[in-house]
């Protein structure tokens, strides 16, 4: 059986600023005959390989800005890689940022329909699964309230429920369960396990190393855009913890995470 997700030597560069910031500046430079130099990459993910088969869960760990979310966005098809190739088979559902893809002014139920269509569900499919989504998210009557009044827990429960209802072959979760309470996390875990038994694959990004140990069959440790270590869950998590408690590597990873241009997110604010 071919794997559901395959990444071969995938790389991604982010530059800042990505282009001349203003038309005026670009024009003046062009008139003066100055070439607009491409800035050096502010962040680079490189040499990323991955293969996830049916029923297995891969977890990606690492400090802030190590490229975990970038990997998920690449697999989801949100970003286009700078090099390499990504192959996916079947429906992909990504819960990548808290409440992302949900619209604050719309009510919970309107968002269920909107997010459902974004995840590739047909309208009739979303309607058929509507009560299931609301029940699992435990939103209750709040489903008729604009989601800007939701707590962060409610938002993540709703996003997760919709993603699961789309029955993805490939489930991408980025800290999706971090804000849920213990009971909800338990139910999420059960639901994911059930889904994986059905033949799906999951890639989970989490800072909760207990979750990682429990669910992941393989763990990849990213550092500054490169794979530092990969392998069996406990082995990698232990090494990761050891590096953080040890004096020397800790300073190292600290430097990496405070380096400028670590996260592509701030490009958005430019």
């Amino acid at each position, binding site marked *: 059986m071919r794997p559901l997700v395959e990444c071969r030597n995938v790389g991604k560069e982010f530059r800042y600023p990505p282009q001349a910031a203003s038309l005026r500046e670009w024009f003046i430079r062009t008139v003066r005959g100055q070439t607009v130099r491409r800035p050096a990459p502010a962040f680079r993910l490189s040499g990323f390989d991955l293969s996830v088969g049916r029923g297995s869960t891969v977890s990606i760990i690492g400090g802030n800005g190590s490229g975990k979310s970038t990997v998920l966005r690449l697999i989801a098809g949100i970003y286009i890689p700078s090099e390499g190739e990504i192959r996916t088979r079947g429906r992909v559902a990504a819960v990548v940022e808290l409440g*992302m893809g949900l619209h604050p002014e719309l009510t919970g139920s309107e968002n269920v329909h909107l997010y459902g269509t974004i995840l590739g569900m047909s309208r009739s499919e979303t309607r058929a699964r509507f009560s299931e989504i609301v029940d699992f998210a435990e939103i209750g009557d709040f489903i008729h309230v604009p989601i800007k009044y939701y707590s962060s827990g409610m938002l993540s429960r709703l996003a997760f429920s919709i993603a699961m209802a789309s029955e993805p072959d490939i489930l991408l979760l980025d800290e999706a369960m971090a804000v849920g309470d213990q009971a909800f996390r338990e139910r999420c875990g059960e639901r994911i396990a059930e889904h994986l038994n059905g033949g799906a694959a999951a890639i989970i990004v989490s800072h909760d190393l207990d979750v990682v140990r429990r669910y992941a069959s393989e763990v990849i440790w990213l550092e500054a855009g490169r794979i530092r270590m990969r392998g069996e869950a406990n082995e990698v998590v232990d090494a990761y913890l050891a590096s953080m408690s040890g004096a020397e590597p800790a300073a190292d990873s600290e430097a990496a995470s405070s380096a400028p241009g670590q996260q*592509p997110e701030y490009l958005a604010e*430019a």
Partner: protein
Amino acid sequence: MATLDDVRVITPRSRGRMSDVWRFRDLYRSLVARDLAVKYQSSVLGFVWTLLNPLLMLAVLTAVFTHVIRVPIEHYWAFLLSGYFVWNCAQQCLSSATYVLHQHASLRRSAAFPSEILLLSAATAKHFEFAIEIGLTLVALAIFHHHGVPNSLLVLPALFALQFFLVVGLMSPIAVLSVLFRDVQHALPLVILALFYVSPVFYSTDLVPESVRGLYMLNPFAGLLSLYHAVLFEGRFPSAGLLGWVAILALSSYGVGYAIFRRYKSLCVEVA
């Protein structure tokens, strides 16, 4: 479980599949509905408000150009009416292109769907309003101007389609530019204002000197508005030559604009 036949290969050269736009048609529909809903739910008078602004402008323009600067066109109000909403819709679409990608930045960074849908849905919502405005225009012209319904209205759907292609084609590079250069949104109003004066909105193409007419018709809105004037105001079928010319402009604008958009859209996701 969705079909596993849906194999997707993403490489640095991927631009997304054309069929994805169709696959996400429900999203397109939701976005159009949301655009309209947000606009009309927020005020009690709803549609009346959006109509009030152009009506006021129409009244001012009619007063100025029939009493102060006399434009030699009879039934000036009817002339103005048959082109004004076209221009109004087009310029709103063009300015919306500077912000739609920013507006939905979080959506685009959290889900993979073709960004074309954002442009198409913004343009569709505006053209939906335009259709209502043109409907009202038709009623007014039939009662007070033509005293009947001219056959030329049969061409109207074709004009409508050409307008949509032309506008979406122009919106695409504007959208890309305004993501890459932050001052495009400030420059565009000037361009639009200039375009307003070199388009036959408050005067007719006939008033443009013959010597520069060829140059003048390079402006796609000159041709488009002339078509509307022929069909709505004069109630006659437009010449095949003019129709063909506008069709060429509209389709090439759409083709070129879409090609530019596909080339740069992945960069836009990262920046905006």
